[in-house]
């Protein structure tokens, strides 16, 4: 009898997951978490940074390790000398920045813990340009609200569905938010997102976009791809990945 009740319950739960309205209702839990966390977290609260001895060996590569993008891989062959980071959207001074120019921006080195949504954690030493300074350089327009990161790696086998992510201005200007170009004292490897990957330390790993080729400043991201602000968000994950 208990097995029967169990089977009916599980079947019912499964049907609920497949509707539109039920997951939406469940989503209020994560909205509540976002609200509470943003309320209690001071703007500049920093995540823990570790000692030099903590990072160990190779940093795990998750998601894409080798982008299925021939043009991009061509650039990788000569150390991304021809790579340009496009910064456009709601800015007064859009531009294209070479790696040398990005390296010339005020940088930050931080030894932090990467927390993947899958459950694992890894500690790495990241060096990169402070995103806040880059944004000040391009002069945000008054209605700028989100920073969208467009990436070179397609998530589909046919080359479509390029990875992308977005963060708001609080995270964009956070001291630990950097465009990383070095990992563990060496140039950022291809497997870990070369030439540039985002670090946004108060959120889970999927927000830390790899292979960033364009930064677009927008007021609202609902017109981009699936409209939820990121590749994984379009697949049902939360935009705010604080937990």
């Amino acid at each position: 009898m208990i097995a029967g009740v169990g089977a009916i319950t599980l079947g019912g739960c499964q049907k609920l997951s497949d509707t539109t309205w039920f997951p939406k209702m469940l989503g209020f839990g994560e909205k509540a978490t976002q609200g509470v966390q943003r309320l209690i977290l001071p703007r500049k609260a920093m995540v823990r940074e570790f000692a030099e001895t903590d990072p160990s060996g190779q940093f795990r590569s998750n998601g894409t390790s080798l982008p299925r993008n021939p043009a991009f891989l061509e650039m990788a062959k000569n150390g991304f000398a021809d790579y340009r980071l496009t910064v456009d959207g709601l800015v007064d001074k859009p531009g294209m920045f070479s790696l040398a120019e990005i390296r010339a921006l005020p940088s930050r080195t931080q030894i932090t813990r990467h927390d993947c949504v899958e459950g694992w954690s890894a500690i790495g030493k990241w060096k990169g340009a402070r995103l806040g300074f880059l944004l000040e350089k391009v002069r945000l327009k008054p209605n700028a609200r989100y920073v969208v990161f467009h990436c070179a790696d397609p998530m589909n086998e046919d080359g479509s569905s390029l990875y992308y992510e977005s963060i708001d201005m609080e995270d964009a200007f956070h001291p630990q938010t950097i465009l990383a170009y070095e990992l563990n004292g060496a140039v950022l490897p291809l497997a870990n997102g070369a030439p540039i990957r985002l670090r946004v330390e108060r959120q889970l790993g999927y927000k830390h976009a790899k292979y960033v080729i364009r930064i677009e400043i927008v007021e609202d991201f609902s017109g981009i791809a699936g409209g939820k602000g990121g590749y994984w968000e379009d697949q049902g994950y939360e935009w705010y990945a604080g937990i």
Partner: protein
Amino acid sequence: MADLNNALPEKKMQYRHRLPVRLMHWINVMALVVLLMSGLNIFNAHTALYWGESSYGKKPPLLEIRGVEDDEGNLIGTARLFGYTINTTGFLGASKDLDGNLIEKGFPTWITIPSNQWLAMARRWHFFFAWLLVVNGFSFVTYSLLSRHVVRDLLPTRQDLRSIGRSVVDHLLLRRPKGEEATRYNVLQKMAYLSVIFLMAPAIILMGLGMSPALDALFSRLVGLFGGRQSMRTLHFVIAWALVAFVFVHVFQVIVNGFWNNVRSMITGYLKIPSGLDSE
């Protein structure tokens, strides 16, 4: 003349569980079931547990569940705990998916919500019911303290504490309380309930919050105290199973002490107390 010893023993009714207790108890049951099952789906996204801050530090995992191919190319499920590997095919590591095919999987479909591996959906279930547990739990504790339910019914008395040994024996012998004794929780019961409410539940919530990178910006020292984020993930898992063990014992006791009487009392509030006239 009727033999008094053959007369039916009197049973009196006790108003045992007040409405707020009953309501919040069943909400807890629902929330804990969903939290466990969605939690296992979440665990399935990375079927290994570690101690410390990193999963890729110098120490190997404490627990690792994997599906591997044997020499003939068959998929077998394995669980390695503290260095000892056991074959768990069919349950852990390798089990049938919803179409009946044997696939690599942590915990099986019948124990997870959703049934298939679906991390995004499992997180939605988990974080909604987590809030439900926290709000309900907080209300339950507040009510229980204000109504003196904790002090009157749950706190062991001095006499209780002196009779722990006897209570253990009673439990092992499956002796059912009668008369006045049956109108109270016994000492082991009180200790179990108190540790669930005031130790295990707050601890598991703390461990859950400890996995949040955002809250790390507030509480990283606390996280460090426990050994790190991966330690908190491991403890979260361990306490979850400790709660499952509690539920098994709890349900067992409900069954052997008069199943329908007990379940009915947690719905209507009224418990039939067997008379204490019999010898024992």
